[in-house]
């Protein structure tokens, strides 16, 4: 007995310091004590002191009013009651499948009301037309609550950027997931001289970033910025980046007008003489895709900025019939692309677009086994009729 007590003493002596350290690293909180957000948890949904279980299971009502800095009601503003736990872009067992955000408009006295609410964490966002939005931190809705939202003092930005540039001012609302909820974004377009002006931007002191896109320039994001209320001047300068220019011609060397060219985010349409210019490019190899109705889509890999001439073949049409059996697909290969056209119930077929030159047409079954084939020679932009593919 004595030796067991001694052993127990050894254990207690050894465990006590560990328990002390653990206890210090896990500060206890009273369940009803509202936790102060640390830097690391500041945007996690916070719960205010919960009500007794009976009250929490009852439908809640949230009313409120939207006023400006002079205490005047703001009418006609969209007010969204956001449920951060509503449906997002990841669907997973245990996550909500329903959109739970609710919208109301403020009446002439700036009032809004949400009834029949399931108790839970919410936040409010008010978006008055032409004025800065305002929002609350996440709070726990239960029983009957009333919230007053006060529009912030105006923050305005003005400055110079590139002609017709599109500027998107985006901020994060703490506790608001990006997916499944309308983001808080203010969009402005620069005039033909590159000037822009945004009044009633985001609430002062809110960190925001600016995404600037302009034709012929490399898209870029700026920020984050944080400004006090008032008018501020910020210019946004984009790099022209590199360019890729060239000409699109058909197989006969004739210029192709109206071909759409895609290279990363850059897009261009070829001119009457087939010329094109893609600008705002990065220095890297990427894929150039050229397409036009009635032509064979062309994919060119590992293209760098500079110059290039593209051949965009006019498509030929092929008609014919399959005999000696029933196939599932009529197939052909162009470069890295394999085309399978379902044959349906008919023995006759029509392929609206094949590339010019020699082409092997194949018939496959459901499991892509080869049943028969024929080689055709299609003239560019022409028609091949009466092709017969005899199945084995």
């Amino acid at each position, binding site marked *: 007995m004595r030796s067991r007590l001694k052993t127990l003493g050894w254990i207690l002596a050894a465990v006590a310091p560990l328990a002390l350290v653990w206890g210090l690293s896990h500060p206890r909180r009273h369940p009803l004590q509202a936790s102060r957000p640390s830097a690391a948890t500041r945007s996690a949904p916070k719960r205010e002191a919960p009500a007794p279980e009976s009250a929490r299971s009852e439908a809640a009502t949230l009313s409120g009013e939207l006023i400006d800095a002079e205490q005047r009601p703001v009418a006609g503003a969209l007010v969204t009651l956001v449920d951060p736990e509503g449906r*997002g872009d990841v669907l997973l067992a245990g996550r909500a499948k329903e959109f739970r955000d609710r919208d109301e408009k403020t009446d002439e006295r700036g009032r809004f009301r949400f009834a029949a609410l399931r108790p839970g964490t919410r936040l409010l966002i008010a978006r008055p037309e032409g004025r800065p939005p305002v929002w609350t931190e996440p709070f726990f809705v239960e029983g009957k609550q009333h919230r007053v939202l006060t529009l912030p003092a105006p923050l305005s930005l003005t400055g110079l950027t590139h002609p017709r540039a599109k500027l998107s001012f985006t901020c994060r609302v703490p506790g608001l997931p990006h997916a499944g909820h309308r983001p808080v974004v203010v969009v402005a377009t620069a005039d033909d001289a590159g000037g822009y002006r945004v009044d009633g931007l985001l609430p002062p002191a809110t960190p925001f970033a600016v995404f600037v896109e302009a034709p012929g320039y490399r898209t870029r994001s700026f920020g984050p910025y944080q400004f006090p209320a008032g008018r501020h001047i910020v210019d946004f300068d984009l790099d022209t980046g590199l360019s890729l220019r060239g000409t699109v011609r058909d197989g006969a060397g004739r210029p192709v007008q109206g071909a759409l060219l895609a290279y990363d985010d850059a897009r261009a349409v070829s001119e009457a003489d087939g010329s094109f210019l893609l600008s705002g490019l990065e220095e*890297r*190899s990427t*894929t150039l*895709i050229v397409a036009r109705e009635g032509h064979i889509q062309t994919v060119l890999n590992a293209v760098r900025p500079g110059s290039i001439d593209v051949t965009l073949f006019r498509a030929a049409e092929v008609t014919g019939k399959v005999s000696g059996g029933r196939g599932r697909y009529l197939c052909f290969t162009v470069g890295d692309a394999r085309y399978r056209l*379902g044959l349906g119930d008919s023995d006759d077929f029509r392929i609206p677009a094949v590339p010019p030159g020699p082409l092997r047409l194949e018939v496959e079954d459901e499991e892509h086994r080869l049943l028969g084939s024929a080689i055709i020679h299609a003239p560019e932009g022409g028609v091949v009729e009466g092709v017969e593919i005899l199945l084995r």
Partner: protein
Amino acid sequence: MRPLRATLLLCAAAAALPACGGHKDEQPALVATPPPATSSSSDAPSVPVGATPPFSLVWNVGFTENVPMSAMEAQLPKFIQMSQDLWTITEGQVWISRIRFSDNVAPGAEASSSETLRVPNLDVVIYPAGKWNVAPVTGETLFFSPSGTLGRTNRRIDVPDNAQRLTLIHEASHFAWQLSWSGNNLPPGLDDEYVYSPDDPACIMDLMFLPLRWCSGGALPSANHVTKNGGQGAQSCWEQIKLDYPNFSYSGINTSSSATPAMAVEYSDTP
């Protein structure tokens, strides 16, 4: 003997205590036992655990409606761009080597019933914009169990036919990795970062700003995102990828000097 017994009991008691500095509801990220090394090419739609870079993915993409061949061709540039973006973000370690387009996979289907759509051969489903009735969501990644019940594997991407570049790479980021992290109902892929602190608005999983990148943290280069401690059991994107894929690396440059390998494409068009 007594000190030895006491030491053993002490070890048992210490093991029963939570780790110091941890949180009650925080679950440590699991490190999966590496299976045998996987070839860098397979038919896999997401990177298998144990794979070695560079690794190519194969995606089966289905249009719910019977669309013309030109409509399928029109989607190709977006998927090529997505493969290039994936190649860039992974610093030349992952790309899509083959896309198989097919159509008429679920005529009339609407996005709101995506979880009931059974398309066992598909990794991506494309809806006509008019049937995309789950806005403001612009794209979705579904994770489900058991594997293969709603798609080819345990995950599927659903997007409208007018999905933008950043939506596609965001959903592809959810989809591409098979992660072992656990915690507050985390998916077995990259999660949305934006719900939890600390903020990293430049991460693709957050507000999707340029330049494209995933967040990193801890001792990784260009750390911009510390381990989450809000009880989610999650950490930065690259930290978790590195845990589950020790053969992959991250240098912090978020780009690749080599061109994205070519993508092959197959179209199967219903008459």
